[in-house]
């Protein structure tokens, strides 16, 4: 039981920190990703009309 508790505690810590860390990165960098996506979709729209 002790072995499993140590294992799950470690896994929980890794999971929690990964979750928080990736969220922070995605929040900061995702916005510029979105803007680039809008630009390319707009460009596609113009190409389609031409």
């Amino acid at each position, binding site marked *: 039981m002790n072995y499993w508790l140590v294992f799950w505690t470690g896994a929980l810590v890794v*999971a929690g920190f990964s*979750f928080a860390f990736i969220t922070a990165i995605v929040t900061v960098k995702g916005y510029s990703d979105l803007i680039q996506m809008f630009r390319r979709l707009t460009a596609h729209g113009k190409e389609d009309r031409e």
Partner: protein
Amino acid sequence: MTFSPIDWIIVVAYLAFSVAIGMIGRRYVGSVSHYLVAGRELGVYVGIATLAATEIGTITFMYNAELGYRYGFAAFVAALISGLVMIIIGRTGFVISRFRALRLMTVPEFFELKYSRGLRLFTGTLVALGGILNMGVFLRIEGEFLTVVSGINAKYLVMVMTIILLLELLYTVVGGMVSIVITDFVQYVLLSTATILISLYAVFHAGWHNIVSKVATTMGNAGFNPIASPKFGLTFIVWQILLWFSIHTCWQTTAMRMFSTKDPETSKKVMTWTGFIFLGRGMLPMLWGIAALTMLGTGVTRGGVPLPVLHGHVLEPIDAMPAMLGSILGPGIKGIVVAGMLAATMSVNSSYLLGWSSVISQDIIMPARQVLGKAPLTSRRQILVNRVANLFVGLFLMFWGLYYTPPGAVYLYLNVTGTIFLAGAFVSVIGGLYWKRANVTGGYMAMLMGAVGVIVPFFFLHWSENLTGFTAFTLAAAGLIAGSLLGRPATFEAAETETA
């Protein structure tokens, strides 16, 4: 326990903001590929946000918390498998790279490329049926969560469900995948903040030492060791590994994110990093469930665990987590958490609405029209068909959610209903991409035997979920191999020759 005015202001402001930004997507929808796969323009970071937001909903929090409540730390094994499998798929590009290179819009579309139009139609029907039934329990459980946490009278459950659905439908129908990606980004940030907040609150209020002690005294070794747990064991682990490989590669809503990325390399990065999020997606709500057991688990014992009790009212295990949140969160924080959960709900449901309606339009209606000799629809008409299918799926969900209550643990119900089509679809996709001998006969047999392998053992022979799932994958694989060896060899080479 009820909402304060500040909580209501936060929630209403979030809903208005979410729908408003969702409507922005409309101006970027020029063709059916924009509507269904956002023009294949997703970058890594927004790709991670939309994939994570799509697969993290209130329903996810509820069923994972229920697993934690019922089975303690041993339940973590399910979360660990889902995350690790995702990381392996991301690192290797298994299935997803080739899928992306084929420029698909739906999973059943591959079945026409590799096998036949008939098998696409058959697979599309099974995928839509299984997927919609699977999603059918979402609204009720999400409505329960919101009413329990916010303290709204349970008689308003139907109204809460209807409002959630209408708001989701509004921007999904109008802007398709582009709207969903925009809202997913905002919703991901909010739901992640709520997830971290709840985790800290739950451990702070229940106490780590108390949490461990409660599991040890209630469940003993089975609360920690998944092999020793009567509900899990080795068959569960094997089934879960197969199931998560199939979900991460062939589940329509996940696959649509892979199809929407800029290139196969981006799809691999998105999958890898989202794998780490999936560890927390499972384990953190399971921890909330264990904290709820610690704080509220004082009722009579049922199924090896005490039922939750709050203010003298005995609850079901699935309602323990929201009841705990309702009692420990203060004004303002409760509003942020409920807005976060609403964000999670809307991001999942909007993506699922689009996912299943796209299968109905692209894999059932379009091929059926071709079989009947009718002319192909223009891009605009295809979008219209998608929108109508979206509304149809939404209406069905309302009625199904009102009248159907899943038996047993919701996580296992969802896994079993998903396996009905996932077993055959996954095996056929693997065969189609990596085994040249795989053919139409094998594809049909895999889909049929996979579905029969779930329906007969589970619904008629009443086998356990673990054994049922394991049997379904084994039968589907046997069907593909036997059918392919008996039938004529296939001539398909597209997976090797097409590029992004």
